Structure formats: structure tokens, C-alpha cells
């Protein structure tokens, strides 16, 4: 798969907003409720598999090849509603094309000091 193939979805008309609902109607993704706007997903199937998928699914598979992306980034890239993209991603998880990692639920509301320190260090270095 060339880089061009990976980028083509940017130029394609994403189609009407209702399409994902038509595509996925009636199927309840097993992981839908686990998906957050900052859930990270990455492809575990090659981009070549995109050819066997409906358009939006194929686009998601292609854009998640090289590195994990958040649900928010995928929604913005596809110009689709976050809720619609969660449904599509959930389907791709069920079908074994993507794996995901959601943020852990906050531990009793107690912040993670190591994580905060890492973020602080990172922002200071900007």
C-alpha cells in the first residue's frame, strides 16, 4: 500500500451524513459503549483489506494503518458526526480489523500523579 492510497480519503466526497446510519442500521456493536471521543484505535489488518469493505469502513482502515488515531480525529477526517463514527469503528472492532484502547475510568476520581507529571513535563518542553 502506498502513501497515496492512504491519503486518498481526504479528497473523496464523504457522502451524506445519514449514510453511516443506513450502513450500520440494526447492528449493535459490542464495544460501542466502550468508545470515548479519545479512544485510540489502530488497524490490525492490512490496508489492502479496505478494498473488501464499504467505503467509510475502508477509509477508516486505511487511515489507522500507520499509527493509532482517536475517534475524534477519525470523525474530523471523515467529516462525520462522532456518534456515527463510533458505530463504524465498533463494527470494525467486531470484525477484527481494528483494536482499541479507551481511557480507563477515573480511579475513584483520584488523579494519576505520574500521568499528570508526565503531561506537565511534556507541555513545559513545547
Amino acid at each position, binding site marked *: 500500500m502506498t502513501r497515496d492510497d492512504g491519503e486518498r480519503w481526504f479528497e473523496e466526497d464523504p457522502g451524506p451524513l445519514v449514510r453511516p446510519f443506513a450502513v450500520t442500521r440494526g447492528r449493535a456493536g459490542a464495544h460501542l459503549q466502550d468508545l470515548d*471521543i479519545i479512544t*485510540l484505535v489502530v488497524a490490525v489488518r492490512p490496508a489492502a483489506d479496505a478494498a473488501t469493505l464499504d467505503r467509510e469502513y475502508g477509509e477508516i482502515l486505511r487511515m489507522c494503518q500507520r*499509527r493509532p488515531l482517536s475517534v475524534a480525529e477519525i470523525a*474530523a477526517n471523515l467529516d462525520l458526526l462522532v456518534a456515527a463514527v463510533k458505530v463504524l469503528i465498533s463494527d470494525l472492532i467486531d470484525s477484527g480489523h481494528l483494536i482499541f*484502547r479507551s481511557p480507563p475510568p477515573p480511579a475513584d476520581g483520584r488523579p494519576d500523579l505520574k*500521568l*499528570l507529571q508526565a503531561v506537565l513535563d511534556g507541555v513545559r518542553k513545547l
Partner: protein
Amino acid sequence: MAFANSDGPATGELAGLRAVKLLIAGGFGVGKTTMVGAVSEIAPLRTEERLSDIGASVDDLTGVEGKTTTTVALDFGRITINPQVVLYLFGTPGQDRFWFMWKELSVGALGAVVLADTRRLEDCFGSVDFFESRGIPFVVGVNCFDGADVYDEDEVRAALDIGDHVPVRLCDVRDRDSAKLVLVSLLEHAMRVALTTGGHAGA
């Protein structure tokens, strides 16, 4: 932490990765998107949430094609903190009618920046109340627009009726370093709050 199909080439890469978020709140035109853009490593992206979808179950998601719904734009940017941590910054309007979205967005957020414009300070009252009542650490960034009267940090703190421990920072969010300093003061504040409330050492 949730995983699906735990084998595959990228599993290791994803397993060590953690996404976290900060929120940028404030009234219309106060500089939220500008601030996201000033510090983000990518040009700010825009996505939309639909009013009727928030917290909706799968059942609610089907057959909604015909409904008239409200969408709310959400601007966001990304900062790769280190190979294990990626930070997302979300900016969205702070008007009351958008609180439904803040409720979901604020879950797990490390903290929030409330941007204020001294010509319309009342625009950020709602955001201040929201984060205060939920115990989410926040700082106030006073975006210094040209031509606006200059107030010092204590005057703004008094006008907003917020405690001494909440940092107030004068800033120009068009400037990367200025925007960065606001984020640093937020994260330092979040650390202090965590230490006093008993944060845990993490995994």
C-alpha cells in the same frame, strides 16, 4: 482499560499508549480555537457532536435519519507528550445550552482552561461554576484583546468570585509561549490539587 482482539501486529504499540484530555472553555469568540491552534502539533480539527446522540444508547442511534437535531462544533488539537502519552485539547462554547456536551467531555479530563475576555467577563461565569461544582481543576486565562481595559489578576479573581488557589493568568492565546504558560499553570495547579486530595501513583 478495554481491549478487543488482543493479538495482532499493533497490539503492543497500543497497549502502552494513553490518551488524556484538557478542555478549553469560554464564551463565543474568546479565543478557544486560537488557543488550541497555538499549542497543537496539528492544525485544529473540527468535529461535530449531535445533541440527541449524547449518552444515547444503540437503540436511540437507529432510525434517526428523519429527526431534526442540533449539532455542536468541537475544535480540538493534539500534543504528543511522549511515546506513551498523547494529549488532546478540546475547545467548545461555554454557553449553558452546551453543558450536555461538557458533561461527557469532562469525564476523566485532567483539567480545564476557562478563557475570559474582560469586556464580557460574565460570559465565563457558567464555565467557572461548571468546573468548580464538578471538582475539575481549572485556571482562568484572561485573553488580552487589543483595546480592552487591562485588569490585574486579582481584580479578575475578585470579579469572578473564585478562590485564591485558582490561578488567573493574563495571556495572548495567539502566542504559542503565552498559551503554553497557561497550560503549564493549569497542570501545576492540577498537581497541587491531586496532592492535597490524595492522588494515586498510577500504573
